[in-house]
């Protein structure tokens, strides 16, 4: 029996920025518990429905939904159910307002001018940098380099660190589940330097084989490039362990945190990673901005990536000298408004608390997994959630005898449910799994249990429709 409650009327709309979330008293107990899962230790029986207070009325999803204007619309005559968050997240009104304010009140080029507007823009821009730094617990804000997105950040490391540190025979260790942006730039570097890329396959539970990964990190390894959370498998890698294995042999580590930073606490100093990348648009910030975190001694030793204004100290006709961190890696006018928008997104997320977001999403992840894997002829990729195995709130799946494109099209057209179909920028992984493409539903903290329920009902309808034509 499914409860469809319109939560809009029950929620008090709090001011967009600096909101404090009022929680039900009985929820506080849940937050303090250490095991982040449903208490049943057995394998996935269908999760208890509306009795779970974490997902029921007053859940984080219900509370935050009103902050996201874009979610309140109809698509093809049906309520929009947005389940494509791994591709990009939606933005709270506060972030949209921040962008608007920037352009209406103090848009000006940063770092260059003296006048009032320029000083204010610079101030806000550098404040945003500080917010990013605090958010991931970097030592200082100059360890944060703003880029266009995570992809550009990885390219920065590849072209700047990679080309000047890797030689013939050096090894770069990756997994086959990496996103294309974490693979292709290293292919360029390997071609240019003669370094060798080595890939770790999946283990039996459809997670990259951590044991094999450890073995591959030999003396020849100079860099390990791994995702924190997989955008297809929903698995989480033990980054702190990977980093210690890498450092034991003198290798560096680059962590692709695109699917982790938006959804959980990420502490670069506790992980001790050398590099970390993330994109703003996946963490409720605007598109067009992302960042590279790098330990300052590492970044200082790296040559510049892009050349131009801002990253120089003195420019002569035949040579130039370069600026200090982080400017050395930020050529040209940056996406100022967007960086400030990212800062606002971080404020918004921090006000809720990443731990809180994580716990809610784990509940929702388990609920999604349970319901989806109970649908006949559906095959979900990645590990089964359990006491020891956390899944991110996303499921890539295939339906027997129905193409993912057909699923996604019908879900959209007939039900207003937005999922993704394709290879999700992970062709090697799909090839390994033996499929051309898959469908993927991915959630964020503003999704609710009702979103999952709607999705499942619509999926049943979709599968029946195509089955009747076989």
């Amino acid at each position, binding site marked *: 029996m499914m409860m469809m409650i319109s939560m809009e009327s029950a929620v008090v709309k709090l001011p967009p920025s600096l909101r404090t979330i009022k929680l039900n008293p009985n929820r506080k107990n849940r937050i303090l518990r250490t095991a982040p899962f449903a208490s049943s230790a057995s394998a996935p029986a269908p999760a208890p429905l509306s009795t779970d207070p974490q997902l029921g009325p007053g859940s984080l999803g219900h509370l935050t939904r009103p902050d996201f204007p874009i979610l309140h619309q109809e698509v*093809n005559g049906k309520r929009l159910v947005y389940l494509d968050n791994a591709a990009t997240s939606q933005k709270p009104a506060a972030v949209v307002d921040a962008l608007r304010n920037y352009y209406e009140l103090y848009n000006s080029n940063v*770092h*260059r001018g003296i006048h009032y507007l320029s000083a204010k823009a610079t101030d806000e821009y550098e404040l945003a940098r500080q917010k990013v730094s605090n958010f991931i617990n970097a030592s200082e804000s100059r360890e944060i380099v703003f880029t266009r997105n995570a992809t550009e950040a990885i390219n920065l490391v590849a072209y700047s660190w990679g080309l000047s540190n890797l030689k013939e025979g050096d090894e770069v260790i990756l997994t086959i589940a990496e996103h294309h942006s974490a693979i292709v730039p290293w292919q360029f570097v390997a071609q240019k330097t003669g370094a060798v890329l080595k890939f770790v396959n999946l283990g039996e539970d459809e997670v990259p084989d951590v044991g094999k990964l450890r073995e591959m990190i030999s003396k020849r390894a100079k860099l390990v490039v791994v995702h924190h959370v997989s955008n297809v498998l929903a698995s989480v890698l033990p980054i702190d362990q990977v980093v210690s294995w890498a450092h034991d042999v003198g290798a560096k580590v680059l962590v692709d945190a695109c699917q982790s930073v938006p959804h959980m606490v990420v502490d670069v100093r506790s992980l001790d990673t050398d590099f970390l990348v993330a994109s703003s648009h996946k963490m409720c910030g605007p598109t067009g901005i992302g960042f590279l975190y790098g330990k300052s001694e590492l970044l200082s030793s790296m040559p510049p990536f892009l050349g131009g*204004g801002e990253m120089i100290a003195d420019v002569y006709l035949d040579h130039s000298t370069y600026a200090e*961190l982080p400017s050395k890696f930020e050529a040209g006018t940056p996406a100022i408004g967007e960086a400030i928008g990212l800062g606002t997104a971080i404020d918004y997320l921090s006000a809720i608390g990443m731990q809180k977001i994580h716990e809610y999403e784990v509940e929702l992840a388990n609920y999604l997994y349970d319901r989806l894997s109970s649908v006949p002829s559906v095959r979900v990729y990645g590990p089964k959630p359990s006491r020891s195995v956390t899944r991110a709130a996303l499921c890539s799946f295939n339906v027997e005898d129905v193409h993912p494109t057909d699923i996604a099209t019908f879900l959209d*057209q007939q039900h207003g449910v937005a999922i993704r179909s*394709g290879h999700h920028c992970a062709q090697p992984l799909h090839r390994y799994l033996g499929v051309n493409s898959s469908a993927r539903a991915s959630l964020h903290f503003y999704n609710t249990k009702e979103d999952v329920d709607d999705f499942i009902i619509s999926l049943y309808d979709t599968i029946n429709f195509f089955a009747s*034509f076989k």
Partner: protein
Amino acid sequence: MSIPTKIPISSLFHRSAAPFFNPTKIPTPPHRFLFSKTITKRISSNQPLLSSPPSSSSLQRVEELPPKLQEIVKLFQAVQEPKAKYEQLLFYGRNLNALDSKYKTTENKVQGCVSQVWVRAYFDEDKNVIFEADSDSMLTKGLAALLVQGLSGRPVEEIVRVSPDFATLLGLQQSLTPSRNNGFLNMLKLMQKKALQLYVEAERGESPSSGVSGIGDSAISDGGEGESEIGGDLREDLGGNSELGSRGRRIEEILKELRPTAIHVEDISYQHAGHSGVAGSDGETHFNVEVISEEFEGKSLVKRHRMVYSLLQDELQSGLHALSIVAKTPSEAVAQ
């Protein structure tokens, strides 16, 4: 907010007095997200969202379509409800004959589809084109079936004249995502191209092949699929349009750099009128080019084509959309 009195230290390193806004040219990194080919916001189902709104004058009239295609269009127009349209589409797809796997080759694969689609074409005894197609996606198979049923058994001239606009007439565009529509357009384009290939092959005196890979239309991308050598300089026999516009004449002039013993340039843009590549250009967009020159001696086919492309770089960047190239040495041209 009060006037900030502190400016972060990092900004003080920048000493240049003159602000210079230098938009950096960033090399295109692989995109982080999986992008769809076109992005359209769908607010309600009542608004047909078209990537290029057709004016009534540019929409091909239903009466001009091949007869079976007309029937199909009318049938879909009669079905109002989107779900019923889907059912109709799937019904077509189910009745599509399976394609033998030996025909599922790269040359027969439709580009731009999220799913896999193959199209095959061959002549029947009356030189009408017969199509076969297949797809792993049921909806795409339905679309393929529409095209196969609508265009099969018709002569080449009729097929190549079909404008993709008729997709709007189907009313399916409302019910199908833009990327699927792209697949639809590309399917149609591939079918038209294959029909033309059959025609060209037949005119050259080759026996009508079963349509398996052979000639690939040299598209813009380099290193196109295997081109088979066509014997003889039979271009003249095609009776193509002998009047060239300014671009056609320029192409002829430019290619004289190859010191050809024979050169023939044919403007076939009219066959592509209506599809996206033509919009905004002066109409001279597609050409067949045949060059016979000693310069090709000892060079591979790919290399010969590259020579032609590099000479025509400026044209390619200013509206020339596609070239079909035949590049021979004089000895090859003489041999049958």
